[in-house]
């Protein structure tokens, strides 16, 4: 894995206790928005996304010393954010004694009344369509469609092959298209 010099420099400053805090501030301002939108698309609601974003960065701060540079720093953070988001959904579902799918559908149904949602019917329908997909297809679809991520980068985050991802994305897009054009 080839890491850029800037990234290597940031990593070494993050792993040095004398420079850790300044480097962490840099990391925060570089990645917080992208990670937030990634999380938001998984957990849907702003307050939950806020919790998950904070947990993600705290986890990054605590475990940066163990980061070996096997992947890009941002892929590693995306992976933490993805895992934290899924854990959050699971915890919520467990607390409410409902399935993960039900928890996700409840979150989508609450969008209409959400002040931090400006989409209209079609966006709600799109969220409902995404929710019908298996978890991994949902992740691939969101990362590729909205974030325009390269398959290579998605593969690194989800630790899977590019070929499998391409197939996953096309299946997901087709299912969503069918869902959107149906009544």
């Amino acid at each position: 894995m080839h890491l850029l010099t800037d990234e290597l420099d940031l990593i070494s400053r993050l792993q040095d206790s004398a420079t850790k805090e300044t480097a962490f501030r840099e990391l925060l301002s570089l990645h917080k928005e992208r990670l937030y939108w990634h999380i938001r698309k998984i957990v849907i609601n702003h307050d939950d996304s806020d919790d998950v974003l904070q947990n993600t960065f705290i986890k990054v701060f605590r475990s940066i010393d163990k980061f070996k540079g096997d992947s890009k720093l941002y892929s590693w953070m995306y992976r933490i954010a993805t895992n934290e988001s899924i854990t959050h959904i699971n915890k919520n579902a467990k607390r409410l004694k409902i399935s993960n799918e039900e928890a996700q559908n409840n979150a989508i149904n609450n969008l209409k009344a959400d002040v931090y949602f400006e989409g209209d019917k079609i966006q709600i329908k799109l969220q409902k369509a995404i929710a019908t997909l298996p978890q991994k297809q949902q992740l691939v679809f969101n990362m590729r469609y909205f974030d325009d991520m390269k398959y290579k980068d998605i593969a690194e985050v989800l630790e899977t092959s590019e070929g499998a991802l391409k197939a996953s994305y096309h299946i997901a897009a087709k299912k969503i298209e069918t869902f959107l054009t149906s009544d």
Partner: protein
Amino acid sequence: MKKDKIHNLNTTEFKTPSNYFESFDEKLMQRLNEEKSIEWISSPGFTVPKDYFTSVEAKILDTVNSESETKVVHLFSKKQLYFVSGIAASLLLMLAVFNGSATDELSVEMVEDYFAESSLDSYELAELLSDANILEYDFTITEINNTEKILEDYLLENADIEAIIE
């Protein structure tokens, strides 16, 4: 003039609701909007509170700063803790096995429950076993000197005298 002659019927007399054509465009656009293909949707429509990204940065920094100021020094690392608890559990298990029902404090079930309820997953347990290098040999007593003395002490300490008299 005969009104029922076909050449005189130059209108169908069908009517439309009032303002039908005026409202048609909007209705059609709305429908197109609802049925539009996925390519038309460029954003999921989520927004954030004003200045959220500035405030969240401050919140995260506060948390990590307070953590680094009051850094907790663990007496045992997680791995060491698993190691020690593993040994403790093994010893308890041995005690339970060799003492049988003589003790009210521990049973095989309790140790099983301990493992079932602890948050250790099978990988952590496996890691623990390889670290501790536990062998079957560790659970067998190969040699006991002064057997009689030990047995006597054991009976004195543990046996229910009334049961023996009976």
